[in-house]
């Protein structure tokens, strides 16, 4: 069932990771070609005779309970061999399966980039459309928790750049469940970027099995002075900034991008046609990134709509630092968003 991208205001509260857990269970129940694999998806694999089962349910807990429900054939712990298991998922997907694979952190994309770039992305095209790759790759992004340079990046722009790959970044439990459901049933490879800071946050989530359209953004707050675009957890930063700006009499519209490839440029242009101003907040590094991509599209297609030069608030062009004092400088925060916007409007 396809639902609209909105923000449910009532119902049942679920955490982001619980909502994903529900989506995967519903998908596996309705379609036997869906299976899950990754590192520590189950945890203590094969130790059931010792009384261990489901020790981890993966590091983000979205796979908890799957092993007991669906068994070892469809819920597979893998060795730490990203090239082999991502490659195997691509191979299985090309012959009719719908694998859901976890790459523990997006930083690890470096380990298996060949499989993503040369096989997942290109198979359909270079085989003349004979085979598709309905693969779902779940990965984690986000700094701000002190995990250092190799477990904290948000470098989804690397993947957005690749023709043949779709990329989504849910921002709450409702969108996490719906976009996972769509990704699994999508006939193209879809990468889902889950921000660490969202996993335990609750929002209202319908119990039904539902899908949300990939490629559509959501207006999370209506406003008239400026369009603020957020990605993943940065949408929450944008909403916080908008609250603060309201006290200064500045009325900001917040767009929650949700889908990075394809991208809903129309919704951004529609908002900019109303506000005439644009700021993009992105936790990724600035060069060749989502923020510059969005701004270039708006400038190219809607130059006459703009009253002012658009701005971007992003991470710096550096790796993610460890020390809390530096990491807090690295991640865009509401104060930086507020000062950027105030500077623009006082210009």
């Amino acid at each position, binding site marked *: 069932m396809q639902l609209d991208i909105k923000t449910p205001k009532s119902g049942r509260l679920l955490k982001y990771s619980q909502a994903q857990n529900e989506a995967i269970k519903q998908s596996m129940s309705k379609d036997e070609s869906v299976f899950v694999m990754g590192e520590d998806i189950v945890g203590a694999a094969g130790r059931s005779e010792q009384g261990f089962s489901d020790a981890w349910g993966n590091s983000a807990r979205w796979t908890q309970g799957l092993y007991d429900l669906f068994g070892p054939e469809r819920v597979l712990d893998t060795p730490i061999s990203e*090239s082999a298991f991502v490659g195997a998922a691509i191979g299985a997907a090309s*012959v009719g399966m719908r694998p859901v694979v976890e790459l523990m952190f997006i930083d690890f994309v470096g380990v298996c980039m060949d499989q993503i770039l040369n096989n997942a992305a290109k198979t359909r095209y270079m085989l003349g459309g004979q085979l598709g790759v309905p693969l779902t790759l779940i990965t984690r992004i986000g700094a701000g928790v002190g995990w250092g340079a190799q477990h904290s990046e948000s470098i989804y722009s690397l993947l957005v750049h690749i023709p043949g790959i779709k990329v989504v970044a849910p921002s709450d439990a409702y969108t996490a469940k719906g976009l996972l459901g769509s990704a699994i049933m999508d006939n193209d490879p879809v990468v889902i970027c889950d921000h660490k800071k969202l996993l335990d946050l609750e929002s209202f989530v319908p119990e039904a099995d539902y899908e949300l359209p990939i490629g559509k953004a959501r207006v999370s707050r209506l406003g008239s002075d400026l369009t603020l675009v957020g990605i993943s957890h940065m949408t929450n930063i944008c909403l916080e900034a908008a609250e603060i700006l309201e006290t200064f009499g500045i009325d900001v519209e917040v767009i929650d991008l949700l889908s990075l490839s394809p991208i809903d440029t129309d919704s951004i242009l529609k908002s900019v046609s109303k506000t005439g101003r644009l700021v993009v907040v992105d936790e990724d590094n600035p060069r060749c990134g989502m923020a510059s991509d969005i701004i270039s599209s708006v400038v190219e297609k809607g130059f006459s709509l703009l009253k002012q030069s658009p701005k971007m608030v992003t991470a710096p062009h550096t790796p993610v630092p460890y020390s809390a004092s530096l990491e807090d400088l690295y991640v865009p925060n509401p104060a930086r968003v507020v000062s950027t916007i105030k500077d623009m409007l006082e210009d």
Partner: protein
Amino acid sequence: MEHLLDIYRSMFTIRKFEEIASRQIVDERIRGLLHSSEGQEAVAAGVCLALDQNDYLTSTHRGHGHAIGKGVDINLMMAEIFGRVGGANKGKGGSMHIADSKVGMLGANGIVGSSIPLACGAALKAKIMGTNQVAVSFFGDGATNQGVLHESMNLASIWKLPVIFVCENNLYAQSTPSDYSVSIENIADRAKGYSMPGEVVDGMDPLAVFDCAKNAVSRARDGDGPTFIEAKTYRYRGHFLGDNPLRYRSDSEEFDWKKIDPIPKFRVFLLEEGGATKDELDDMELAINENIVRAVEFAKKSPFPSHEELEKDVYDNYPKDQLNRAVSSME
């Protein structure tokens, strides 16, 4: 007897296809790379004869033999090399990516080692769904130094996947000799490290290859897991069409390997011990030649892909205006 003739038909088709396709690339000034497998025919023919049509196969940049062995239509292959829309991949892949999903040929692959885990994935599907299919992954000696092979062997071993790893050791990774780049004399010995049988087979002897592959296939179908086969073989041409191999290997080495060319050798075997007659083989060879000449005609008659094909098949489903943004702003 029939399978002996099948092996010869397959080897002879591969040889002639490579010869004629190579000539066409030059004569027709086709823009493209071609990696000839001449000399290695016994491996492709022997392994593929041990497979059913619905078994899976992944291949390499040197993949024409594997495709022919698996039953891909040579018309579609030739048209693909010509870059025509009637090609196996609608002209969008080229020699290095020929695939035909109808016969389980999941594709040749241009990245050394990259297709190996894909075969594991196809085998994993067979295992999860209980279809009794097997998957074969062909690769060269060069790929055995890629990490992804070792990861894939480990994965196949712990999950007992119905997959057969076939290393065509033709002694050279591009120009780099395997006795320089591989740390072990018999690559098959590396299989021990992954608890699977590692067989060394004479890659110039199609029957030896066939027997070895047949055992590996039945092991895989019986649920006993993967096998690693190293076929010692030789490519008679350079790494790619235009590469002169005498820049990095001696003509006496080539001569020694040509003395054991599997095709004339097997022809003699068929006549002396296989019950074939000269007329029968002559007719077969003539028919194969004609088929390949017809494949060239087929390719030439097929049109080039229309401009719309540029943006087709990137995704199953994607907003069109986001595929052609650059193109429309150029126009």
